[in-house]
């Protein structure tokens, strides 16, 4: 397969953080349109890996986004293609109003004010926040804030989505809404989450990271159902899969 067919291609990526080997020899790829999960215990290096996918960190090795190699000169192009959603939405909503937040990316991409406004409004509307454009983020509920953070990226119309723990601190309703949103994101998706049941519902394929190394990958239903593997890496078999096995044996 030509590398151009891949949305994300990571080859032998290593990263050293203050003398600590945070990532070592990571290689994997995502096909365009795939939805893939990244799981692993805290401190496994998931966030570090994700920051490499739009050049916020740069280690040794090669990362390509739709064939374009990430390096200093390609950064601004890469960042138009890769949308990052961070664990704490408050970090991502830094402008005075939601509409300004959602327009921040488009304006940096060089769109005109008018185009940016349109993109921002559309993204907010898609996330069910059409009425709240003039609000500041601290008047939102946790679930709204989470969707607003996604809208700020959606407005850039990225081809690749990288989401780091987007489900943290949501109540069951907010979590359900988020899962519905994640299942409908356009493009390629890489999702890091501790919520194994969310992973099962959103991602077909799954990468397991531990100690900075890729220790397993494969179909979510198979990888996460492997009780021994999960135990070994401080994870757990999601109840949804445990159920299934039980129903099958019963």
């Amino acid at each position, binding site marked *: 397969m030509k590398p151009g067919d891949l949305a994300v291609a990571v080859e032998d990526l290593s990263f050293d953080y203050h003398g600590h080997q945070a990532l070592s020899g990571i290689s994997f790829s995502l096909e365009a349109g795939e939805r893939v999960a990244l799981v692993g215990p805290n401190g496994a290096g998931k966030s570090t890996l994700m*920051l490499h996918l*739009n050049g*916020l960190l740069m280690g040794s090795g090669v990362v390509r986004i739709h064939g374009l190699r990430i390096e200093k000169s390609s950064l*601004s192009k890469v*960042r*138009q293609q*890769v*949308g*990052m959603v*961070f664990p*704490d939405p*408050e*970090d*991502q909503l*830094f*402008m*005075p*109003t939601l*509409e*300004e937040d959602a*327009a*921040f*990316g488009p*304006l*940096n*991409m060089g769109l005109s*004010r008018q185009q*940016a*406004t349109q993109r*921002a409004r559309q993204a907010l509307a898609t996330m069910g926040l059409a009425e709240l454009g003039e609000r*500041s983020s*601290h008047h939102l509920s946790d679930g709204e804030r989470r969707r607003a953070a996604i809208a*700020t*990226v959606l407005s*850039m119309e990225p081809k690749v989505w990288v989401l780091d723990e987007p489900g943290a601190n949501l109540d069951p309703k907010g979590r359900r809404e988020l899962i519905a949103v994640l299942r409908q994101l356009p493009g390629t998706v890489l999702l890091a989450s501790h919520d194994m049941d969310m992973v099962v519902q959103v991602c077909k394929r799954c990468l397991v990271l531990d100690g900075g190394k890729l220790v397993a990958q494969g179909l979510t239903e198979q990888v996460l159902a492997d009780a021994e593997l999960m135990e070994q890496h401080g994870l757990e078999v999601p109840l949804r899969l445990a159920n299934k096995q039980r129903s099958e044996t019963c």
Partner: protein
Amino acid sequence: MHHRTVEQLAAGAGPIHRLDPRVKLVTVLAFVVGVSTLPVVPLTLFLWPAVLVLSALLVAGLPFLFVLSRSLLVLPFVLMVAMFLPFTRGPTPLWVLPGLELTVYQEGLQLSLAILIKGALALLAVEWLVFTTPFHRLLLAMRAFRVPRVIVVTLSFLFRYLDLLADQSQRVRRARMARAPGGTVRWRLRSTGGMIGRLLLRALDRADRVHQAMLARGFDGEIRILSCLQMRRVDVVFLVGAGAGLVAVPILGLVAGGGL
């Protein structure tokens, strides 16, 4: 916290709320400067500015009593500083406090009253401004007036993360209170240092993460925004009207100051 009330009021949609923030900012600055430079006597000089600011507050549809009560904030300071004046600035004695051998002088009393009135009027004007203008609109006005970008950007992030950090601070204080029914001074000090220190570390981490989130969306050192300000006819009309009203303030001052 108080600034949440400010924000709520500022989010209103009255005619004053919709005025161009540049017009409001200039008007209030001119008013405050004018009032601060008025001479002390006669006190009737302050009647006209008082009428101006009170009617502006009425037109803006702000909760009158709340606004007035906020303006009493000047009291403690002025009382502390200006309490000496009536007894020390002469020469015209008004009366002698019985038993205390303290003479109250007319000039001193007038001066302290004038200070009080000036402070209160300026406060009312500032309240009118911030209670009818969302903070980010004020920042747009500052941008338009070429306030250095570092300052506008710092103000913007300061306001954005004020609540978040204030909430954090409140939660830390609660967590301490939950475990600290008593405690020695030294102990309290050590924990205070820890609380503030950790708050600072968290603020620094927050700044790093926000910066990353900005970079991820293509930030290149320039903050671009959608909003732009446009003068409408009503803004010009207001500016002219307010200007005419304000010109009267220094003229009155000159007239009184020149003894005409």
